[in-house]
């Protein structure tokens, strides 16, 4: 079979199972079984699949995933994260689009405590939407920042998606995490500027309101007692990875331990919080990692059948500029992102894309971050971006899907500008990891 025929077979099979509605993990398992019968033989191929599933989980690179998820869960369920929002609100004066900026700023910090875009958007949505509604904010100014900041969780460390990408693509997990800091901040800044500008030009979008004055004593108290401990935890985790003092796994474990100790100090670590934290951690990480285990054979079969090398050679023999191949791959990620969730997209595309990027001699961390951003954009792109449905759940029921679609377009455009800037200036990604190593 020609390599392209093999690739088509793989993807048609997978799409059939996924689109019928099989849970993604079992769709991968089913497809792998069929492929094994075609390309190897049932008995020995299945044994190899089982071993691949075992080894993919047993490898050290994935251990940070449940730990980072635990860190986010415990901080959310104990209510500590909400205190950050409160402190920020006290410090923020009467700026244009105040609540949108507040959402962006706190969402960016939440992103640094959470590995999951869904958790981030859900939390921002439920905490900010009522206030924004009350103040007469246009949907563009509420939905936009919530989804924009929500999607930052995949880029700003810790990010479960980044860890997964590193493990799948053989890219240094530490570099991917560190490399995501500046692009994440860049996107956050672009979005903040965007909301300030449109809010300043059309004050009906974000009506000004009288901000409740808070005393300096309250502000400083909040800063010291509520904000500093969490910010300290963020810096600790990033610094541990950055300095090479600890591996990403060790950093995640220390971060999770810190996240358990903090609420204990505030007296907020009760049975209920622990139960919710553990259930949330197990549910999310179990779901992600089972997909990973079930799909482990998929990428190996792609290589085994010669499809991967066929694609790599075909791309290498193209006469077009290599950057066009990069753009093409990112477009595929974006398009898939509009109807499939990020983890599955990584499972599908990484085994084919990373060898191509490597062969074309582009920086893998740079490409990885671009993929993560595109996954984030796909996540909020109509009609089926996952976060669109998360936000709908927290909005009043008379808001139509169409209105949500319209209100997210600005953020998508700004994010795409961010992608272009990072493509033109790769140093935004590569600089920090290179400093960390000196």
């Amino acid at each position, binding site marked *: 079979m020609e390599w392209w025929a093999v690739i088509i077979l793989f993807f048609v099979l997978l799409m059939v199972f996924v689109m019928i*509605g099989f849970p993604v993990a079992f769709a991968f398992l089913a497809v792998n079984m069929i492929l094994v019968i075609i390309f190897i033989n049932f008995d020995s191929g299945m044994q190899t699949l089982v071993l691949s599933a075992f080894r993919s989980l047993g490898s050290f690179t994935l*251990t940070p995933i449940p730990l980072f998820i635990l860190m986010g869960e415990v901080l959310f369920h104990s209510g500590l994260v909400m205190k950050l929002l409160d402190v920020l609100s006290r410090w923020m004066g009467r700026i244009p689009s105040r609540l949108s900026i507040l959402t962006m700023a706190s969402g960016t910090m939440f992103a640094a405590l959470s590995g999951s875009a869904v958790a981030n958007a859900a939390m921002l949505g439920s905490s900010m939407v009522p206030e924004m509604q009350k103040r007469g904010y246009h949907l563009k100014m509420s939905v936009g920042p919530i989804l924009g900041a929500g999607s930052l969780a995949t880029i700003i460390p810790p990010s479960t998606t980044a860890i997964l990408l590193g493990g799948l693509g053989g890219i240094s997990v530490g570099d991917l995490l560190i490399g995501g800091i500046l692009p994440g901040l860049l996107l956050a800044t672009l979005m903040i500027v965007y909301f300030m500008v449109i809010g300043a030009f059309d004050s009906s979008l974000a009506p000004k309101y009288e901000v409740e004055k808070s005393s300096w004593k309250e502000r400083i108290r909040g800063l010291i007692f509520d904000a500093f401990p969490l910010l300290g935890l963020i810096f600790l985790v990033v610094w541990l990875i950055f300095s090479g003092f600890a591996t990403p796994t060790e950093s995640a474990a220390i971060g999770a331990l810190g996240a358990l100790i903090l609420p204990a100090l505030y007296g907020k670590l009760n049975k209920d919080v622990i139960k919710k934290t553990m259930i949330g951690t197990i549910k999310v990480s179990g779901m992600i990692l089972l997909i990973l285990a079930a799909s482990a054979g998929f990428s190996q079969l792609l290589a085994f059948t010669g499809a991967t090398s066929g694609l790599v050679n075909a791309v290498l023999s193209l006469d077009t500029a290599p950057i066009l191949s990069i753009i093409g791959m990112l477009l595929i990620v974006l398009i898939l992102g509009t109807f499939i969730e990020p983890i599955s997209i990584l499972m599908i595309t990484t085994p084919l894309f990373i060898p191509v990027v490597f062969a074309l001699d582009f920086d893998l961390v740079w490409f990885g971050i671009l993929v993560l951003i595109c996954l984030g954009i796909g996540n909020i792109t109509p009609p089926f971006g996952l976060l669109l449905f998360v936000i709908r759940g927290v909005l009043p029921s008379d808001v139509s899907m169409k209105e949500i679609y319209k209100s997210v377009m600005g953020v998508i455009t700004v994010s795409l500008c961010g992608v272009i800037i990072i493509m033109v200036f790769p140093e935004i990604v590569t600089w920090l990891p290179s400093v960390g190593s000196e």
Partner: protein
Amino acid sequence: MIKVNDKGSSVAYKERSVVNKVGLKIYKVYSTFNKFFSKIENLFLYIAGISILSILIAICYGVFAREVFNSPVLWTNDLAGYLLVYAVFFASPWILKNNGHVKVDLILGNLQGRVLKYVNLLITFGSSIVTFIFFWFSLKVTLSSYNRGVVLLDNIPWPEYLLLLPLALGSLLLTIRFLIIFTNLLLKEKVIET
């Protein structure tokens, strides 16, 4: 589009009007088994939770031993990796029961009534076959490893079969849970209509 809802997949039957006596009997057997099986799933869930906490403790201990006591330990990394296998496969049946395995319901979301039911039956039964085959071969690999007495050459000589076992146990439980959901979907009609 993906829906991850927290509602249990088994419909609460108590609220339904039960017409058929045979159906009722089958339903009672089903219900008893479901209750019993849920307990097993919960037990596995606890083990998964303990595994994750143990990963946390082991890794932290590794860091402290290295940096504070200056005597590095080498087994913590291996242990963490293996506990992750336990965590994932022991948690999966419970996650399935709670509808937590992510799916793309682009088509499902737009189906209704009979068609939706048949597609769900197809998905559930198909998945149970897939997980059963996976169970069968993980059992085979586990037994083979046990019979050959394979011991890993890591810093602690873990017997390999103990690390493969969660794959077999987890996929067996998944198979049974899929069959329970399947039965549930079938019974729903039987009990109410005939």
